[in-house]
Structure formats: structure tokens, C-alpha cells
């Protein structure tokens, strides 16, 4: 390892920190948006417990102010293991089925597309 390595590492870490500061994290998310293939599939309030069948391949459940992937036809099931989003966590993505679930605040946030 030489000095240039450390310069590189510092630049990378500095970039990560500034990205973290620069990215607005949704404040007080109250809604969840579901996208399939980049197109908005639907938006659902986090305060209403419900079960959403997405595109016939995934099921999203909203319970106690949080949303999570309940079931999916994908082979790796990574989306199910991504846990719950709501106040904590911002998105759940199922890459094979091209489904993404994101939190937002209905008043503040324009989820950038």
C-alpha cells in the first residue's frame, strides 16, 4: 500500500459522506409508492394496513406504519429479506421482477425519476 492508495481512499470516503449529506432523506414518510418497470403502479398510505398484489408477481404488505415485501416469485427472495421500510429504510427493490417500493411524504417529496 502506498500514499496514493490512501489519497484514493480518502477521496472515495469524502465522496460517500457528501453524497449522504446531499441526498435528501424523506422526512416523515407517510406514503409508499410502488413502481413496476419504472412506471408508477400505485401509492398507498402507510397508516392503512393493507395487502397489495403487485403485477401478479410480488405482494407488498403494509402493517403498523411499515411496508415490506411479503412474497415474490423471484428466485433469490432478496427483496423479502430487505426488511421493513417506513420511518426506517427508504426502499425495497426486487430486481428480477423490476419492482421497487419507496417511501415518500405526500406533501414534501417528489421522488425523482
Amino acid at each position: 500500500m502506498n500514499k496514493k492508495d490512501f489519497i484514493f481512499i480518502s477521496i472515495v470516503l469524502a465522496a460517500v459522506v457528501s453524497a449522504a449529506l446531499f441526498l435528501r432523506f424523506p422526512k416523515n414518510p407517510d406514503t409508499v409508492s410502488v413502481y413496476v418497470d419504472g412506471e408508477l403502479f400505485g401509492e398507498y398510505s402507510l397508516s392503512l394496513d393493507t395487502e397489495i398484489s403487485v403485477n401478479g408477481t410480488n405482494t407488498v404488505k403494509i402493517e403498523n406504519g411499515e411496508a415490506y415485501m411479503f412474497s415474490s416469485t423471484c428466485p433469490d427472495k432478496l427483496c423479502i429479506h430487505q426488511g421493513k421500510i417506513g420511518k426506517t429504510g427508504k426502499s425495497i427493490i426486487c430486481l428480477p421482477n423490476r419492482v421497487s417500493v419507496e417511501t415518500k411524504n405526500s406533501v414534501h417529496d417528489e421522488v425523482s425519476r
Partner: protein
Amino acid sequence: MNSKKIARVGIISALAVVIGYIESFFPPIIPVAGFKLGLSNIAVMYAFYKLGKREAFLVMLVKVLITSLWFQGLNALIFSLFGGVFSLLAMVMTDKMELSKIGVGMAGGVFHNVGQILAAAIVLGTTSAFYYVLVLIPSGLLTGALVSFTTSILIKYTKNV
């Protein structure tokens, strides 16, 4: 490229595919989408230093094509390709900037993940994939360091391919 070099690239490419296949049986250490140690890059880096940049590129290409087309799906191809290309470009540039093997490996790891996040953003049509940089870039540094450390030991203790 003469036949000797072709044979060497072939052997290393085959090793890359096999390493990747074995790695697919490991459980993911961090439960984030697509997290892998990227051990097949040991083969790519070995070719990078022992055979040359072009040869390393070929190893990467063969590994990406065979693994994604044979073992996975078309979706995987885009992610693998973006990851591999970004990673190699970063390695070429940092090598030119005279970083050590470890530094080059870390750059490879980081930019591999950057490429994949970019691919995810394109495929999903959303920028929410960028949130993953907070996890994937530091882990890119770590896995890159691991891969390059292993490669440097390999280079030191093996004779020619």
C-alpha cells in the same frame, strides 16, 4: 495474440467462471441486494498483472458472458457487464496513477459497485438505487482490498501461468 497467450487467457477465464460458480453457494455476508465478495476478480486481476490489460478485459468478458447467460438471466448480464467494465476502467486508470495492487483492487471493487448501481438505476428507471452507495462503496473498498491482497499473494508465490 499468439496461441500461447490465447491458451493462458482461456485457462484463467475458466478459473474465473468456476470461482464465481463456487462463490454463488456462499451465503451473503451483508443482506443488501447483490452483495458478493467478487472472488472471480482474483482471476481478472491476476491476468491484469501477469498478462496485460487487454487480456484481463477478455477474462472479465468471458466470465460475465458465461456466468450471466449460462447460469443466470438476461437481467444479470446488464449488471455484470456494467460492473465489470466500470471496474476494469477504474483499475486501468488507478494503475496508471501508480497506485499499489491493493489500491487498484479497491478502485476495482468500488467502481464495480458504482457500475451496478448505475445499471440498477437505468433498469428500474428510478434514482432510489443511489441510496445503496452508502453501503456498497465502502464494502467495495473492503472486498476490493481482499481480492487484491489475495491476488498479490498469488502473483508472488506462483511461477508463470
